[in-house]
């Protein structure tokens, strides 16, 4: 039978297709934009500054000339230091200093510290919760728990951050006697709240996808339910759980609001996990609103953005690879 051309259907099909491609287009545009703003750093074009001439003072209005400020109020101008890409590997982050320093090490180490602590806490919690709901939980618990944990994922991170700033920081300081109230550890604990749902949902999916035949064979051979869960189901789902951890890492690395509020935002390069830290994402969050458009500082912030973009992009790609290829191949072979 010959297919009749239906204009209505054709239009609908095309517009749905268009919508799907628009999101793809957006990603590409964001990608291009972020990189385009960062690239002049390395081509040397960011250095072109208009020579500062003395522009004269602003007019004043409604002033009482008989009451000048007794202490001379100083106002210093930033020195212009030619930018070199090597400056990004310095040990100080002082972008609004008179001699700006754009070292990214303290920020990178700060991000890694918080992410590490968050994963250390959220990993086991998320994985074991997933193991429980996928293998042991009675139906009612399973149906109750999943949505609740997923609600946690939709919890506004600013609320988590606020909670950490006001409540959690004091509790942890009293508990462990930290020198600094806001520090990487406090930020990491708060971040764990945001990471648990991701680790949980992805591992839950992986564990639930383990073929029933494996579980049944194990039980038939006389293994207990615990033994089956720990030594058969969990190992079978390892690639999926690995992917869950990677996605959790990506979430923690890019999260802004929680770290901005709970980590103290001091760009310190120390090994201690209980010192305040400033993360890459929080730096963008705190400084982007103020920065002079087209300035070196502005471009460095975009470079940080590009860095975060690349990191999250590659982490997602790795996670996808583990789920698609390793996990599914393993189950098909089983």
């Amino acid at each position, binding site marked *: 039978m010959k297919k009749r051309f239906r204009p209505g259907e054709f239009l609908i099909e095309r517009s749905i297709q268009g919508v799907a491609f628009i999101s793809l287009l957006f990603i590409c545009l964001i990608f291009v934009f972020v990189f385009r703003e960062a690239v002049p750093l390395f081509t040397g074009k960011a250095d072109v500054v208009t020579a*500062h001439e003395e522009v004269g003072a602003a007019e004043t209005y409604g002033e009482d000339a008989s*009451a000048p400020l007794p202490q001379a109020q100083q106002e210093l101008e930033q020195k212009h230091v030619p930018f070199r890409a090597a400056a990004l590997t310095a040990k100080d982050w002082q972008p*609004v*200093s008179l001699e700006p320093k754009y070292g990214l090490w303290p920020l990178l180490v700060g991000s890694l510290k918080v992410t590490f602590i968050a994963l250390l806490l959220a990993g086991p919690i998320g994985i074991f919760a997933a193991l429980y709901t996928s293998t042991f939980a009675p139906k009612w618990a399973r149906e109750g728990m999943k949505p609740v944990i997923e609600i946690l994922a939709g919890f506004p991170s600013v609320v988590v951050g606020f909670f950490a700033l006001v409540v959690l920081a004091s509790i942890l300081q009293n508990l462990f006697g930290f*020198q600094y109230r806001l520090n990487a550890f406090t930020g990491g604990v708060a971040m764990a709240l945001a990471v648990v749902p991701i680790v949980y949902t992805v591992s839950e999916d992986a564990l639930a996808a383990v073929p029933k035949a494996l579980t049944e064979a194990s039980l038939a051979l006389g293994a207990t339910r615990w033994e089956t869960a720990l030594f058969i189901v969990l190992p079978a789902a390892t690639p999926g759980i690995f992917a869950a951890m990677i996605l959790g890492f990506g979430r923690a690395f890019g999260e802004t609001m929680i770290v901005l509020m709970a980590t103290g935002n001091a760009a310190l390069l120390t090994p201690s996990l209980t010192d305040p830290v400033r993360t890459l994402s929080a730096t963008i969050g705190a400084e982007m609103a103020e920065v002079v458009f087209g300035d070196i500082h502005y471009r460095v912030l975009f470079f940080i953005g590009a860095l975060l973009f690349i990191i999250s992009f590659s982490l997602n790609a790795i996670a996808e690879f583990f789920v698609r290829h390793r996990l599914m191949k393993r189950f098909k072979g089983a």
Partner: protein
Amino acid sequence: MKIQKISAALLLGALPLFSATTITVKGSDTMVIMAQRWAEAYMADHTDVVIQVTGGGSGTGISALINGATDICDASRPMKSSERESLKMRFSSLGVEVKSAKDGLSVYFNDANPVEGLTMAQLKDIYTGKIKNWKDVGGADAKIVVYGRENNSGTYVFFRDNVLKGEDYVSSMQSLPGTAAVVNAVAKDPLGIGYGGAAYGKGIKFAKINGIAPSAETVKDGTYPLTRYLYMYLRGRPTGEIKKYIDWILSPAGQAVVTKVGYFPVK
């Protein structure tokens, strides 16, 4: 029918809102409470004017003024020549500066801290990281926890230029968004030190600088070393409703609000 009536009523009800002049004010977090009080008091007497006040920091406010996104910019530091240059490029005006209030930039200690005051040199050494322990300035043998403002703040820049004389802040300084956050942090931290406007002062005490406490007299006659003006910037000479508003702020009624909030009048 009914819906039409309702929407007509809504339209009529909304009309005064649209006919009112809107003045936008943006900038310094140090000044935001005062700016809100000014706006409330002014709007109570002038129902035909709507004044919208937002904070964000002096730098943010000045950027907004340069981008044309605000009518008035509050700033706790004078505009830099590079900023005046940008303004000149876009609006061929160097801006108009209104000194709207005076502030004694205060250094905060926790209530439990036995130290009463610091010299300017000690303050500089603490914030540049040369002094790290309270015992070096007459306190307990414990590490100093340094709090400051984020680098988009006018207070951050004023402090850098006038206390640190252009040197860098110690990198262990925890930067917090807004003076209220600094006060809150120092109030919760017995070893903390912070700085900010005089108007914020719950749960903390003000340090004497060079032996002088910030008060109405010492700020007024300028003997308090960290006295500064709080500015309002406009793109051009004020006209119309904006002029009326600025004149009111500089009038005794407006300056009374300044005192009530905890800052000091300009005159």
